[in-house]
């Protein structure tokens, strides 16, 4: 599904020329260009965008949990081109029991902490990430707080017990 405005956008045109398979959707809503790619092509798409369109920095990487739906996680990459003063949103969907996809740290070193944050809060695993550990939550935390099935008030945490009382 590629809408008219997006089809005319130079980035989308170039991406479609490069490969026909990776764009599953592209649209412009509220003046923001979004391209959706398949999860196994994210790294290629990102590398392409960086090389060909000078999206030299990744502004942020995050995820959205659309819980009952499947695949439940929407991974969102916001890219920024300083040279063209342009922003683009790259989206992909992953789901399943243990969601995972390729890390983009090989494209931008700055993706490191954002991916760790997504791993920490959503439990999405990034393959080939140099240091995939929890970043915001304690190391021994159980569960992933930003998932919709994680209770809003968290779990009861017993601070007195040295072991076993880490969470839940």
């Amino acid at each position, binding site marked *: 599904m590629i809408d008219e405005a997006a089809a005319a956008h130079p980035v989308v045109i170039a991406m479609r020329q490069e490969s026909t398979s990776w764009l599953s959707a592209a649209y412009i809503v509220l003046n923001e260009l979004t391209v959706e790619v398949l999860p196994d092509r994210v790294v290629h798409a990102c590398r392409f965008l960086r090389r060909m369109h000078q999206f030299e920095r*990744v*502004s942020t990487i995050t995820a959205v949990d659309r819980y009952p739906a499947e695949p439940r996680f929407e991974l969102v990459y916001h890219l920024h081109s300083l040279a063209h003063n342009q922003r683009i949103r790259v989206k992909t969907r992953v789901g399943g029991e243990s969601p995972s996809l390729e890390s983009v740290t090989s494209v931008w070193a700055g993706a490191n*902490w954002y991916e760790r944050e997504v791993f920490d809060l959503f439990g999405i695993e990034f393959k080939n990430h140099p240091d995939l550990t929890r970043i915001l939550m304690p190391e021994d935390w159980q569960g992933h707080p930003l998932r919709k099935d994680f209770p809003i008030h968290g779990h009861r945490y017993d601070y007195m017990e040295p072991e076993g009382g880490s969470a839940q």
Partner: protein
Amino acid sequence: MSEVPTLEAPVVADLRQVLEAPPETRPRTMVLNMGPQHPSTHGVLRIVLELDGEHVVHARPDIGFLHTGIEKQCENLTYQQAVTLTDRVDYLANMSNNLCYVLAVEKLLQLEVPPRAEWMRVMLVELTRLNSHLVWLGTHAMDVGAMTMFFYCMREREDLLRIFEMFSGQRMMTSYIRIGGLALDAPRGWEQAVGRFMQTFPSRVDEYEDLLKKNPIWMNRIIGVGELDVAELVDLGVTGPMLRAAGIKTDARKDAPYSGYEKFDFEVPTFTENDVYARYRVRIEEMRESIKIINQARAGMPGGAFQADAPKVVLPEREKMKTQMEALIYHFKIVTEGFRVPAGEVYQVIESPRGELGYYVVSDGTSKPLRVHMRTPSFGNLQALARLIQGKLIADVIAILGSMDFVLGDVDR
């Protein structure tokens, strides 16, 4: 350029690993656990430093001590209620966070705010920038050892906080900028209060420059310290004054004007030295530019309404509520349930004092956001820390930490 070195080299630096090793195999380096309680980490940042003498061999920042789950909490509040949480993200640039979130939601609602609200927002956000830069200047100077500077900066900040209190009733957690406009109309006498401050402040900035720039010890401590290749800085996601000090002219106020910034005349100061001193100069010049913007906003402040004419979003006036049935119904709806926001997603970027501040708001059509993600500048900037301080002396580590101007609330959210 994609073959940049990985951010964190093989992990040596957990205290336990090193201490439990037998003495013969113990590395000659010393592991120093800097923070989370340390005067110069500006909050609860922990940096595990591996030292060879006083040189940093390897650094690993450890964050999350101030994680309060604001993003999760936002999902459980109505759109208007969530404004109060955005204050708490960056306690030195609360108005900027208010503004960014509010702009994002307004974009989803496709709501136009009246010009008075826009101009007032610009003025307050620039005052916030002054506030943040003042605190930065004071603490940075104190890190380097110039104790007096801190008190001078706090003196001016006190005036600023009084102004904020005058507007919102709160010194720090203002929540003054609301969806649809402002919380209240500007208080009586705000022009005099801001005017008085603006009269003295420019000379104070000069005074700071005199105090610091004419001090050879201070200059020696910061010139040529904390340099990193520009490409690497961009790659690591550094934004704001740190990037402008490296010669890249990027500023959301110019690149993607919001809230009517295109109507103001100001410059984006950049320097190319890319050291701590350049960062200092960028921030000092930014203070001067902010003064210009505030003066323009003050001089040309439009009259009229301070809230949008959108009865479904903005609470009705007290008077109308008591006389009109419709207004009463809207009031009841907004207070009990909140307003519905059309489904969609938006990524709003503004220039906070620390750099690129982005709010990614996803709505599923209900009155509570599905997801609010905060792209905070401190988080992005802090990623460069390990690279910036590698191979430096401990004293330089302090100077560089100071120059990065991060707020731990902003990092951990």
